[in-house]
């Protein structure tokens, strides 16, 4: 029995079944793959470097939290995060209602990924929509994640 395809692979397979790949569809698939990898690497790094239990205590986060990035055009990329049992992991799809969803465009996401702006700035400027419990303390988690990753890549 073969390996179960990931959503991205399924999407790529569907795309290749339905229409021949064009430079655009290839570019989109490539971008999604890179974004997926980025989120996964961010989780690995933050788990290596930061004790989420302590982090939660520091920011008075009592409950486990499910945070999701909703990047327009990248809905099928694993952009959800679960903070549970002191670990962070990405999830493909958030089954229950997420604690909070950050909706933004790809441009805004990339500006955050490159550390040009912070999540908080994007929120204050109205560049992202926040749905759910908007606890500004969550922003620090993302700042740490983007910083951990962005520092290595873009500095």
């Amino acid at each position, binding site marked *: 029995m073969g390996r179960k395809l990931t959503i991205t692979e399924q999407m790529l397979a569907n795309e290749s079944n339905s229409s021949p790949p064009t430079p655009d569809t290839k570019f989109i698939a490539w971008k999604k793959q890179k*974004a997926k990898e980025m989120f996964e690497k961010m989780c690995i790094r933050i788990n290596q470097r930061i004790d989420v239990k302590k982090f939660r205590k520091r920011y008075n986060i009592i409950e486990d939290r499910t945070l999701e990035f909703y990047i327009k055009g990248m809905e099928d990329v694993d952009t959800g995060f679960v903070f549970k049992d002191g670990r962070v992991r990405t999830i493909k799809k958030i089954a229950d209602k997420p604690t909070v969803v950050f909706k933004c465009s790809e441009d805004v996401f990339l500006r955050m990924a490159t550390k040009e702006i912070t999540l908080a700035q994007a929120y204050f400027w109205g560049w992202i929509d926040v749905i759910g419990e908007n606890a500004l303390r969550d922003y620090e988690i993302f700042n740490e994640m983007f910083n951990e990753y962005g520092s290595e890549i873009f500095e």
Partner: protein
Amino acid sequence: MPMKYDVVIVGSGPAGQIAAETILSKSSMSVLIIDANPEDYEKPCGGGIPNDCLKEFPFLKRIVRHKTNEIVARYKDTDRPFPIEINMVPRMSMRKLLFRRLRSLDTPDLALGYMFNTRVTKVKRKEHMVILNDKFEVEYKWLIGADGVNSVVGKSIGFKIQKVPIIVAHAKVEPAIHKNTRCVIEFIEDFRGYWWVFPKGCHSNIGLGGDVKGRILKQMFDERVKEHAKLGPFEEIYRSAHLIPSAYNTEQKPYQIDDGHILLCGDAASFINSMTGEGIYYALVGGREAAQVILGERLLSEYPSFHEYLTRIQSLKNDLDKQSIKDAFDRIFCDERTSRDMVDFLFSHSIPKPKALSDDEKKAIYSKL
């Protein structure tokens, strides 16, 4: 026969004065300034203006008496300092300076009139006329309402303003206790507002403003002053109370053109940063922009230019108001980076426009991910 002016400005605060100056310096229109207060009226306020304001209006630099380089946000025992420069300006000096600038424009050809201690009692929009002290009529082509939170001009077009009382005092205090280089903004449990201490060199400007009845605010202020006086030598030398807008009116336009040619600015237009209470910057910029609309230099749809910014601030304020003061403070100030971003935003006076990335730029970024 009624007097006739091209532009009648009701209110001679910063908004009205700057509007008059802008019109007179760029056109030959006749301008009449009417104020219910005397020429030497001093409006109570904190009198702190941020650097952005000095950049826009550099002539104000000459009346800066004191500078602080830090704002401390305080809640109970927690202090959060932010490195923001605030320039302390005596309101009376600003008023005098703006009048001097206006009078310096006055020539025999220039029609500039002043009427102090004169109340506008009615606005007849259709006739383009204001009634003064229930007796005299003045006809206008344009009417600027810069007459504060209880604006008669604003009422004539149905403009709504939410108001809160503030109490401001000047006090001689012990400099060692009240560091002369920092402004303190202190939040109080179950109180939508804040207590402030702005050092001004030789004295401190202290105040309290928030969403309670004036009588209760006075009691709270007296208690605070008592607490303060325990810290060291303290002498209150002046006290005054006033109403300011508490929210930016995001629903109504601060103008009506069809049958009145009326523009509002300053407190009359609720031009206020509802999170910080800052109003002078918006009064000055709003006054200038109202004049630009009259001069044909600015589209009415672009008035005021800071509409989007103040609307965003108001939206953030509405979100915070749903929480207790403790929760709000915890959430904003739990993290240094986020709270710094917020304070920077609150003093930025604008929202940057998101620049779209090209495919090549995206490719370059994704390649690195």
